[in-house]
């Protein structure tokens, strides 16, 4: 098996995180300030404004940098929630009494049948513009299904292993058994899933904001910067190209890292038997350590 390089993806993500964290220091201007509505309106890229300015004379580079904060933290928050909800549901499905387990399984099937975007559009359409926390809750509560399935499959495979029986024979309660004894085995695959989910969520946020249903202006996010520039794409290309390129970085990097993690821990297919045997034969207590 050839190992896909983790390194460049990790560096890109670290760079992006730094840009987001230090946006106030790095950004040359206030992202929402109209600098000079007459002379600095819709300027193409220049040394003073590397990404150009928009029709309100705002600096696009500063907006993209601040947008990184919003988009990335939105994705991270959402994925954290997704992993927590998905893992809990998956563990319940695997270890609940047979009847409850069946009910949970059928409920998941039902939820999987409803397209995620449809729910998001419907809620945003009915309730109007949503605040960031509500948006996070909404995307997270429609995004944990795959995680629940994955965790359930992995735990079901682990349940028949002898060390699980041995732990039960020492009287460990089920919740503790899952959390302390079994989840470390699932961690590598969960990390891979989470990384890929971050990329997906960034795209989803951009899409929602582009439709005007996500992060509301004037707060900059990648999606609504693109939204603002969309009508002017023929004359003022810099309004859409730069935020789109910015968005490409975490998506590409996350996919690369996620794929590399997946290859390392589940070489045949995601969440299958190979995943559990591999991850447990390699002694690993903590989440995978990146080796850049």
């Amino acid at each position, binding site marked *: 098996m050839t190992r896909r390089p983790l390194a460049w993806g990790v560096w890109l993500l670290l760079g992006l995180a730094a840009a987001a964290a230090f946006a106030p220091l790095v950004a040359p201007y206030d992202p929402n300030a109209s600098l000079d509505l007459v002379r600095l309106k819709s300027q193409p890229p220049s040394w003073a404004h590397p990404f150009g300015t928009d029709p309100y004379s705002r600096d696009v580079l500063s907006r993209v940098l601040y947008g990184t904060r919003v988009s990335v933290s939105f994705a991270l928050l959402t994925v954290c929630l997704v992993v927590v909800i998905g893992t809990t549901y998956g563990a319940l499905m695997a270890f609940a009494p047979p009847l409850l387990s069946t009910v949970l399984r059928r409920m998941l099937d039902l939820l999987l049948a409803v397209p995620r975007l449809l729910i998001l559009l419907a809620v945003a359409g009915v309730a109007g513009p949503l605040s960031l926390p509500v948006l996070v809750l909404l995307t997270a509560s429609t995004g944990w299904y795959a995680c629940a399935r994955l965790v359930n499959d992995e735990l079901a495979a682990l349940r028949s292993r*002898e060390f699980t*029986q*041995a*732990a*039960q024979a*020492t*009287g460990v309660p089920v919740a503790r058994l899952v959390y302390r004894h079994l989840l470390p085995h699932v961690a590598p695959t969960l990390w891979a899933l989470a990384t890929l989910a971050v990329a997906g969520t960034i795209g989803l946020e951009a899409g929602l904001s582009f439709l005007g249903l996500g992060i509301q202006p004037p707060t900059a996010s990648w999606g609504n910067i693109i939204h603002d520039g969309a009508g002017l794409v023929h004359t003022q290309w810099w309004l859409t190209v730069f935020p789109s390129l910015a968005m490409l970085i975490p998506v590409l990097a996350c996919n690369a890292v996620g794929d590399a993690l997946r290859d390392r821990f589940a070489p045949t297919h995601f969440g299958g038997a190979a995943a559990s045997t591999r991850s447990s034969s390699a002694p*690993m207590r903590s989440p995978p350590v990146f080796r850049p």
Partner: protein
Amino acid sequence: MTSPLPQQTLLDVHALQVTFPGRAGMVRAVDGVSFTVAAGETVCLVGESGCGKSLTAMSLLRLVPAPGRIERGGHIRFDGQDLLSLDEPSLRSIRGREMAMIFQEPSTALNPVLTIGDQIAEVVRVHTRCSRAEAWQRTEAALAQVGIADAPRRARQYPHELSGGMRQRVMIAMALVLSPRLVIADEPTTALDVTIQAQILELLRDLRERTGMALLLITHDLGVVAEMAARVIVMYAGRVVEEAPVEALFASPRMPYTEGLLKAMPRLDPAERLERLSTIAGTVPSPDALPSGCTFRDRCPHAWERCAQEEPALHQVSAAHRARCHLVQEPERRVPTTATGAHA
């Protein structure tokens, strides 16, 4: 070795029946097994692979694997309490604290992602209200007790960093850390080298003497039985077929299956050495295709018509010796031993 009778009964299994759903109805993998273990006693459960020994052991902790089920009707009394009617929390407080289990394969029974110290300390922390530091101290003490040198360092290692014998010592430490009154050891030496086997048995015997725990040793190795047990229970096809004090069983087995097992055991003393090790022809019948009458009759050199028609009861041979064989009632039916040799 003390006589088992006057001691207090710790474990009393009566009419234990474990069933699995099979193609043609429920299959009885363990069928009406009854036995007792007194406090501090060593009892061996003997039989070939697939005869239900391990399943019996798992039933004692109520950990029968998924589609399997313990049928109503029997009971498992542990210290007077019927385990079959206990709820899950009460069961959990018995598992690991009052009754512990040592598994056959330490390399798969230890969790590869946790250090051995964590796994032992976990048992302590689940059952007792004590601090992390205190649990760790008890862990190190338990490791030292099973003869692991440099316990503080070893406790921080993962199972893959230890040898097989060492891992089995860790399993034993984990079982004994809370000084349970009954330890069930399911073929604790099968996965080990012969030299390590002897050490582990020595350790178990030594610990039993020191702690006064009762030991239910499951094995197919009669050498282990001779070395360890006070009393032996022989199982065949999910049933108890013979039960006797160890001397009586080795001196005069009454069930042909036990005889076969004894003949199949290698001997070192030249006087008793046979030309060739004998074997028992055939294999244990599958529980969904048991023969009528006596389950052993297909492989038995003495079988006659009655064996096909009527399942033998567990006949009393002497006070502590019982055997499930019609020969106990009709000893004249026994075929002379030379013929047995020819059969084998």
